[in-house]
């Protein structure tokens, strides 16, 4: 349904805009109906930038975005409005998402004025009640209140209800639960799971691996703007290939293992893989030649992109930066 192909985002920085900042590099991924794809990365990985580009809140500087078969990389105002009937977003800070001086009803009113100008009041009320019920909120608890009178969890669910009013196909959820309490987080996550079951596609941007694992079907791991690993959730978490993914998993504070135990497991694995680069092995196995790899302008490994290690499980070059040596040893020239 949604496909990103080699999406780029470059910012001009420095005095007089002389240097470039590659926030997103050649990112390719897709989201299908009825599935949750988690975009996992730390700060600076570009995950929020990707979310905003999909929502056309930021413009892309390269690559394409395809939605339902149509190219939506660049959209004029009219086309964007139609796009928003199908694609909506919910953001991290529930209190920042509402205009603090108005009641929360106004968010729905804005939507109504824009997309349902000719709908009668009674019918609109029904629609609203339906959407609120879908997110398990009581209209009487919510309508007529100001944002600061409601909790973060309620506000986030309100925002999801707002998106549902439009019969969307894709929801971009950008860190929507990181500012909520632990006990409400799971409710919102369960809600996402339910919506997924109803056919909604969700791009779930997060930095928290355990949350990503709970509700998503596929994951995309981002590091400094590029995809380093991608695949089915169970495949990636059971058998993480890229060193960065492994580092990430090893740093997560688990509830059933201490860091020491995790490190011991990892050490064993590192020993087995010493002196090898799975990326190279897979590339050669597929008959592509290492010599064809092209360096990108700012020295980040680019070139051949991701390679398919196992069905549906892709991984990128193991080096974190161009200056690093290939794990297979300096003898193997990239």
């Amino acid at each position: 349904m949604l496909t990103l192909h080699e999406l780029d985002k470059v910012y001009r920085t420095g005095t007089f805009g002389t240097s470039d900042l590659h926030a997103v590099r050649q990112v390719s991924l897709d989201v299908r109906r009825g599935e949750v794809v988690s975009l996992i990365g730390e700060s600076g990985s570009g995950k929020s930038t990707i979310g905003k580009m999909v929502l056309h809140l930021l413009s892309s500087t390269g690559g394409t975005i395809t939605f339902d078969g149509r190219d939506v990389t660049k959209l004029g105002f009219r086309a964007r409005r139609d796009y928003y009937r199908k694609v909506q977003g919910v953001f991290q800070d529930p209190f920042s998402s509402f205009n603090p001086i108005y009641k929360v009803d106004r968010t729905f009113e804005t939507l109504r004025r824009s997309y349902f100008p000719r709908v009668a009041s009674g019918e609109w009320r029904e629609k609203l009640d339906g959407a609120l019920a879908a997110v398990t909120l009581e209209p009487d608890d919510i309508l007529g209140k100001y944002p600061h009178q409601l909790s973060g969890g309620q506000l986030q669910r309100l925002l999801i209800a707002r998106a549902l009013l439009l019969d969307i196909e894709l929801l971009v959820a950008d860190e929507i639960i990181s500012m909520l309490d632990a006990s409400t987080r799971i409710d919102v996550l369960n809600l996402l799971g339910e919506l997924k079951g109803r056919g909604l596609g969700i791009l779930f941007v997060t930095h928290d691996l355990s949350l990503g694992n709970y509700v998503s079907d596929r994951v995309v791991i981002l590091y400094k703007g590029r995809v380093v690993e991608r695949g089915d959730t169970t495949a990636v978490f059971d058998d993480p290939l890229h060193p960065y993914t492994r580092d990430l998993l090893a740093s997560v504070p688990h509830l059933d293992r201490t860091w020491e135990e995790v490190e011991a497991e990892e050490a064993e694995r590192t020993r087995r893989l010493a002196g090898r680069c799975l990326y190279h092995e897979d590339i050669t196995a597929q008959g592509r030649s290492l010599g064809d790899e092209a360096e990108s302008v700012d020295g980040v490994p680019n070139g051949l992109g991701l390679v398919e290690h196992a069905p549906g499980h892709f991984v990128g070059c193991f080096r974190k930066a161009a200056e690093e040596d290939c794990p297979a040893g300096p003898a193997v020239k990239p």
Partner: protein
Amino acid sequence: MALAVNDLKVWYRTLRGDVKALDGVTFEVADGEIMGIAGESGCGKTTLGKALIRLDTRMKHVGGTVVLDDDELPLADDAAMRRYRYREVSLIPQYAMSAMNPTRKIGRMIRDLLAAHNVRYAEVLPELERRLKLVGLETDVLKRYPIELSGGMKQRVVLVLSTLLNPSLLIGDEVTSALDVSSQKAVARALVEFRDHGFVKSMIVITHDISVLFQVADTILVMYAGHLAEKAPAKTIINAPLHPYTKMLIGALPKVGDRYEEQQLEGIEGRPPSLLEPPAGCRFRDRCPLVHDKCAEAPPFREVAEGHHVACWAVS
């Protein structure tokens, strides 16, 4: 020595009345112990952290005592507490790393801070450098501006700074919250190292993230709506909690490996009570699946097993 808190009550003055943020908490922290305080927003954990070192203008000390190393802390007396602050009790407040003056170099900031506590910078410089190296920072960090450092680096600088004078008690409020996972691990480990090296005798780590506490804390104290719910060794809290709130809280945390399709986790319905007029009796009553008549009376926080305290009538 140790910290003994007895029936501590700290309330907030507001125009609409007193918010009973901390309403009678009693616990102890032993020497060399790292105690984690977990709870959701509004439970009073930050208030507790602040109360042990400095009451701000809105807070008032209503009752109870705090004894550190056999010395009762004069909580209500701001001037008298000066003697203890930073030397005996040190606090890393929430958002500490964002509070550094962006126009001052780190070294300069530290110098000013030490001067305010009558410590000469030149005297502690060797120790300062040693500790910076210990947490993995280079000493030239002192010559840099805060904006040049990453979140994890800033937090480690704050950690070193707060413990420079070897306080008996270090209180860290959400020290790992705004960090990336890898920085989180580094900072959490630095905390444990400081305790192991003896720079700090005991530590109180306040956070909403129980999984971090599981990794670094010896004991975990769970708070709810200004009262204590449960206190036990970290492993016990995670694997065999007794209080219904703790159980539901742990149950609401997805582990890497939990899948929505296989087993849906459940949250806790409802919200914590307003602390302006808190209900009598157990404050978790309205959301508790085990509620019964006795709960109208507040359950005492008592020891039900070795080192395991619970405040619940259903547990005995």
